[in-house]
């Protein structure tokens, strides 16, 4: 009777994979999209009321860890996981991608010689009033990313803070999340921004490109998935996860959605991305994020 599988996720535009899954297994995949901000409360509420309909759950790693802590996730190691790097398996939670963040710019407005070569270049006064980014006081991924810079890119806290000060002095325009970041760059309202390179794929033929930072990594929060401990269709759930982690599915994800996936040898169709170094950011606890949020609020003079 397991002709159905329910997939809760915050990753977007995955209809092609759901279709491909149904075609190859005959199981109907139902995709419930929940935005990150409502993810935990929705799943917890349903879980407590015994109404959790999810078989497979996908979310940023920190969210999934919290779910696991509450017993929502049952550990499952897919046979497909063997092909992934070891660090992608976190006790039954499987990482399959990185929500990578980078510097995106409008290639019609930014002259090639002006394209930043290092993150530090964003602090250059020539970008004054030309930058767009998600609000560093509240947008969790952006906060994590800034911390990632501190830990993985800058030599010292001092240098990092200098960079932040320079960035703040350029008066970037803040938007609520990554979603609204590419539009102002495309339209020329702004020229450059901290955004996601995957938009180069999804928004083609928009004149977007990413800044190839030299000897500096691209960073992002890992995307993770697991099986619900109360899955109504446990068998189908496993099949789904196996399929999801397969090279076919991951290729779809990379090609259609521009995702950076961890399946070896699969890259999004973005020039130069196969050469880039993409690393996961250390997981930050919520109170740490909140604390940094407060800190950035001051640095960027948001209020």
């Amino acid at each position: 009777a397991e002709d159905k599988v329910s997939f809760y996720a915050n990753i977007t535009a995955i209809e092609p994979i759901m279709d491909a899954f149904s075609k190859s297994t005959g199981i109907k995949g139902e995709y419930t999209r929940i935005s990150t901000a409502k993810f935990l409360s929705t799943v917890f509420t349903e879980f407590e009321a015994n109404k959790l309909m999810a078989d497979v759950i996908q979310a940023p790693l920190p969210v999934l860890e919290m779910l696991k802590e509450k017993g929502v996730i049952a550990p499952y190691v897919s046979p497909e996981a063997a092909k992934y790097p070891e660090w992608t398996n976190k006790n039954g939670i499987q990482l399959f991608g990185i929500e990578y963040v980078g510097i995106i710019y409008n290639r019609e407005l930014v002259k090639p010689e002006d394209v930043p070569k290092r993150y530090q270049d964003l602090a250059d006064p020539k970008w004054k009033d030309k930058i767009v980014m998600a609000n560093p006081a509240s947008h969790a991924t952006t906060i994590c990313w800034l911390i990632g810079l501190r830990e993985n890119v800058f030599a010292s806290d001092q240098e990092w803070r200098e960079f932040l000060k320079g960035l703040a002095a350029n008066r970037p325009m803040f938007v609520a999340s990554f979603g609204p970041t590419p539009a102002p760059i495309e339209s020329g309202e702004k020229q450059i921004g901290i955004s996601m390179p995957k938009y180069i794929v999804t928004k083609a033929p928009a004149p977007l490109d990413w800044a190839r930072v030299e000897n500096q990594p691209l960073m992002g929060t890992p995307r993770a998935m697991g099986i619900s401990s109360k899955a109504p269709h446990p068998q189908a759930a496993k099949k789904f996860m196996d399929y999801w982690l397969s090279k076919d599915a991951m290729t779809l994800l990379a090609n259609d959605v521009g995702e950076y996936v961890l399946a070896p040898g699969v890259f999004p169709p973005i020039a130069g991305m196969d050469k880039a170094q993409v690393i996961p950011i250390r997981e930050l606890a919520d109170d740490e994020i909140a604390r940094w949020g407060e800190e950035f609020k001051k640095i960027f003079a948001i209020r």
Partner: protein
Amino acid sequence: MTGRHSGLTLLLIAIVGFLTICPVIMLIFGSLSEGLTASGKFTLAKYITAYTDPALLEVIWNTVIFVGGAATTATALALFLAYLNIRTDIPFKFIFGIISIIPMMIPHLLFSVSWVLLLNPSNGILNLILQQAFSLHHAPFNIYSLPGMVLVEGLLDLPIAYLIIAPAMASFDASLEESSRVCGASTAKTIFRITLPVLRPAILAAFILCVIRGLASFAVPSVIGMPGRIYVLATHLYQMVSTGFAADYGKAAAVGMSVLLASIILIYLYRYLTSASDRFVTIAGRGYKPTIIKLQRSKIPLFLILGFLSFILIILPVVVLFYTSLVPYSMVPSMRALSMMGLKHWIEVLNDPISLLSLKNSLFLGVVGATLGIVLSIFVAYVIVKVRSRSAGILESLSFLSFSFPGIVIGVGFMWFFVRTPLYATVWALLIGYIATYLPYGIRPLSSAFVQIHDHLEESSLVAGASYLTTLRRIVIPLLVPGIVSGWVLMATMFVRELSLSVVLSRPGTEVLAVQILRFSEDGLWGKLSALGIMMIGVSTLLVLLVTLIGRWFRPVDR
């Protein structure tokens, strides 16, 4: 007149109370319990952290200006439009009537984005044009400012105000104005000393509804306020819940409680200000003659002003939207943009099964929800206006309860509530949630229409042997048709683009338009977003035209 209504009043209190109190109670629980759900251990910590935030003061100040400004803009514009449209012989009334409710049908997010494209200080289209025309160095307008927010939110709330004020305008007894003119007052003076004061209940209702809507609004504060670094309560709440991965809606609900309190105070204020309801009776059934004012010389100038305003404020943003749906990505209009236009986004949307399903669901929810909602509203408005007992006051406050919560929390309240019922994850949960939340959209226009029906018209029906229900059916409702049409239009267009609840309650199979639009926006797909948005406007326009025509068919007062 007292005894007979107490039964009805109690029944309505039970129904409305059930609809609106349950989610609010869940939110109160949520704000008082540990963890992310409404069933944790008791704690006051959320209140303490929420209210000791030093930023709160500035946020409140911004909110007051934003909400007050928007409500004033909306009400003033609505009065201007409704007066010309209904009381005068301005040409092309029907079109202006539709135009004034178009913002109701546009997803707020899209409308805000359109304005950003028009008036952003870097390359806003209007700014560029003005810069060129007057060879300015700087962009004359910056949408990312409090006035910008006020303007856009004001326009978005315009239909609410218009639909409440228009029916009142329509049933205004013209001899009240005529006698003022005979007394030597100019048309303008008459408007300010007679027309507006007599219309006070409708004007106040419109203003207060706009205030409450403004408090709950999220699109404008996030799309325009955030880039301008202007925070109001809605964005403050958003920031509060979204910093980190474990969003705590309990804490947001704690702040929401004070919004609720403010709203309830406003409602009581409104009731107090309009307590002598017979002061506003305008249809007496005696020599009642609706009269159209002939504008004569001022006809053309006023028509031009009206046309210009409608064009700049409403049509232009829609045109921008349409344009966005045709170009492959966001770009400033140019010859090149023109050459790249195509129907790609439209074709993609029309081939997307989820978009089509959501279109169907939203249509269903709009039609069925608005119809059920309006039936309930008629009874509630009747009790509120004609009974005016203490329990009627309770009923009125109840009807505003879930409406008064900021959008981003009330949805969670409904989720916490519905998850305890078998309706969870069905389309019925959406239907009930919609009606419960947007009940004031039905009640307001109806009650301002009720106020104007002279008691004698009902009383003579009772004397003629008709029961209350017959009186309601044959006398009251037909006289209410303009109010009913307004209420229905408000509810239906609201339901078609409802987001706050839908985003929490919709599940595979019950997708609705707004949720689909939100998905596109989260992915930054403005083209598809605009295409779907225009389809949504189309659906709403169709509904509005349909019900307006039906309303005309049943028009109460032949003129």
